[in-house]
C-alpha cells in the first residue's frame, strides 16, 4: 500500500516548532495493510517525521518515488486517501468541531454522524465551540478524532499520544486499532519514540536501519553505541556516512554528527574514510555505550585512535566528560598505549 523507493529528502530546523533538521538520502521500504510503527532504539524521531511528511505530500523528495495505494504522493487522489495528523495540525479556526467533522465527510466522503465521530475520543463536550477557543491539546484531539473515524485509507500519525486531552489519550489506541481493522485496504503508519505506545496501538514495530525499515529487535543484550563526531560540515559527513551504510541511524545537528551503530569499530573506520574523502575537519570523536557489554573494547579504542590520527586536522581535545561511560577518543589518539 505504501511504497517508498530511493527517496532523498530533507527538512530544515525550525526553532518555533522545536524540531531539528532531518535528512534522508536513500530510503526504501514497502508497507502493506495493518498498523505499523516507526520506533525502536536508534530511530531518529525527526527522520521518522520527515518520512511521514513525504508520504503526506507536504515535502517533495529531491529523488526517488513515493506511491500510496498506487497514487503519487501529493496528488489529489493520494490527498483524499490519506489522513495525516502531525504535531502542528491546522484546523479551520472559525468553525466548530461538529462543522469540521461534517465538512470532512463532504470532502472525503463517508456518512458517519459528526457527533458520533467526536464521541469516539470523548470530545463531544466542546463540539459546538469554535476551534479558536480550544487549547492546542483539544485541537489535536479533534483532529485525531476526525482522522481515525474518516473514510481515508491510510492514516499517518506523529506521536498520537502526545499533546492530546486525557480522555482522548485513553481511547485513541482502541480507535486506531478499529481504523486499521476497518477495511481490507487500510494502513496505519505511526511515528513514535515510545515502543510502549507502538505496542499499545497493536502496531508492528520497525526501526529505521541504514534507511531501511527492519523489525525492531533492540533491547537487553543488544550492543548499541553512539558515536558523536564534531565536524566542520556535519551535513556532508552525515550524507557520506549514510551513503556508505553500516550505521543504524545517522543524525546531523548544527555542529556534530551522531551515529548509532552496533559496530563501533566499523563506524569509526567509516567516519575516517568519509572525512578523508570529503576533506572535512573533524574536531573530535567520542562514543558512549548505554551500559552494554563492549566486546574487544581495547580493539575499538585502538581502531578509533588510528582513525583519529589519519584525519588531516584535529582541534585540541575537548574537556574530559563527566560521564564515566563516555570515552574521549581524541585523548586515546594522543595516548594510544592506553596509559590513561
Amino acid at each position, binding site marked *: 500500500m505504501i511504497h517508498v523507493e530511493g527517496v532523498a529528502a530533507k527538512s530544515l530546523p525550525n526553532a518555533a516548532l522545536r524540531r531539528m533538521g532531518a535528512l534522508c538520502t536513500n530510503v526504501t521500504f514497502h508497507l502493506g495493510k495493518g498498523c505499523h510503527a516507526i520506533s525502536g532504539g536508534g530511530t531518529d524521531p525527526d527522520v521518522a517525521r520527515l518520512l511521514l511528511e513525504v508520504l503526506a505530500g507536504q*515535502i517533495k523528495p529531491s529523488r526517488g518515488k513515493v506511491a500510496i495505494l498506487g497514487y503519487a504522493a*501529493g496528488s489529489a487522489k493520494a490527498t483524499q486517501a490519506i489522513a495525516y495528523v502531525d504535531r502542528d495540525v491546522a484546523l479551520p479556526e472559525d468553525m466548530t468541531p461538529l462543522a469540521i467533522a461534517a465538512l470532512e465527510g463532504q*470532502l472525503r466522503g463517508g456518512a458517519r454522524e459528526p457527533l458520533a465521530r467526536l464521541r469516539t475520543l470523548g470530545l463531544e463536550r466542546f463540539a459546538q465551540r469554535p476551534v479558536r477557543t480550544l487549547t492546542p491539546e483539544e485541537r489535536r484531539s479533534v483532529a485525531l478524532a476526525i482522522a481515525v473515524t474518516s473514510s*481515508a485509507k491510510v492514516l499517518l500519525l506523529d506521536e498520537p499520544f502526545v499533546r492530546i486531552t486525557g480522555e482522548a489519550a485513553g481511547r485513541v489506541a482502541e480507535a486506531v486499532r478499529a481504523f486499521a481493522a476497518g477495511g481490507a485496504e487500510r494502513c496505519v503508519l505511526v511515528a513514535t519514540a515510545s515502543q510502549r505506545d507502538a505496542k499499545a496501538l497493536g502496531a508492528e514495530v520497525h526501526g529505521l536501519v541504514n534507511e531501511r525499515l527492519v523489525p525492531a529487535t533492540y533491547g537487553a543484550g543488544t550492543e548499541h553505541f553512539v558515536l558523536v563526531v564534531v565536524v566542520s560540515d556535519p551535513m556532508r559527513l552525515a550524507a557520506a556516512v549514510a551513503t556508505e551504510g553500516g550505521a543504524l541511524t545517522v543524525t546531523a545537528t548544527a555542529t556534530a554528527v551522531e551515529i548509532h551503530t552496533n559496530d563501533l569499530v566499523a563506524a569509526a573506520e567509516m567516519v575516517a574514510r568519509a572525512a578523508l574523502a570529503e576533506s572535512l575537519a573533524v574536531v573530535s570523536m567520542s562514543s558512549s555505550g548505554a551500559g552494554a557489554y563492549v566486546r574487544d573494547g581495547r580493539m575499538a579504542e585502538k581502531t578509533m585512535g588510528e582513525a583519529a590520527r589519519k584525519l588531516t586536522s584535529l582541534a585540541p581535545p575537548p574537556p574530559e566528560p563527566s560521564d564515566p561511560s563516555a570515552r574521549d577518543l581524541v585523548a586515546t589518539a594522543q595516548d594510544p598505549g592506553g596509559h590513561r
Partner: protein
Amino acid sequence: MSALAVFRHPLSRVLSGRARWLPVLAWSALAILVAVLSRRQDHAVYVALSRGFGAVSMPLVVFAVFGLVCPEGTVVAAARPLVFLGAPARRAAVSIMLTVAIVSALVCAALGAAVVAIAHGPKDPSLGADLLTTAAVGALGGAAYAGYFSFGSAYFGAHARGIFLVMDVMLGGFGVGAVLTPRAHVRALFGGDLAGRLSPRGSYVALAVMLVLFLLLSTLRSRSRR
C-alpha cells in the same frame, strides 16, 4: 465531494472575521472621507475616485481582505486545514483565492458606488451611469489586486504582499511598470492618465488578463511542496 464544500472554510473566516474587518472598514472610511471633502471641488467624483478610492483605498482594502481570508500570509498556508480534511491542494488553494477575489470585488464595487454617490455634484456625469461604471471598475480592479497579491505571496512568501503593495505604488505611475500593476489601469478607467499607450478599453482587458493570469500562476504554485 461537493464542489462548493471547499468554500466553507474561507467563507467562515469572512463571516466570523469581526475584528479582522477593522482594517477594511478603516480604509473604506478614508475613501468616504475623501469623497466628502472633494464635494467642494469641480469634478468632485473624478477627484474622489482618482485621489482617494483608486489611488489609496482600493489597494489597501484588498490588502486587508487578503489578510482577512489568509491571516497566515500565503494561500498555501491558509489552505492547509482543507488539505488535512481531504481536499486536493490545488482545489483548496483555488477556493481561498476565489474567495479573496470575490470579496474584494464586492467590497470595492460597493465602496466605489458609495464614493460616487457621496461626491456627485452638478458638474459630474449622470449619477446612474456613473454608479454602474464605477462599480464595474471597482469590482474588476479589486479582483485584479486580489490576484496580484495572491501571486506575490505564492511566489515570494508571506511578506511579499507588502513588497508588492509598494511596487504597485512605485511602478504604477510611469513607464513600462505602469502596464504590469493594476494601479495605472484603475487610474485610467477613473478618468486619469492612460496606462502606457492603452485606451480605456485596453485597460479593462489588461485588468481582466491580470486577474486570470495571476490567479492561474498562483494556482500552479499551490501544487509545489516545500
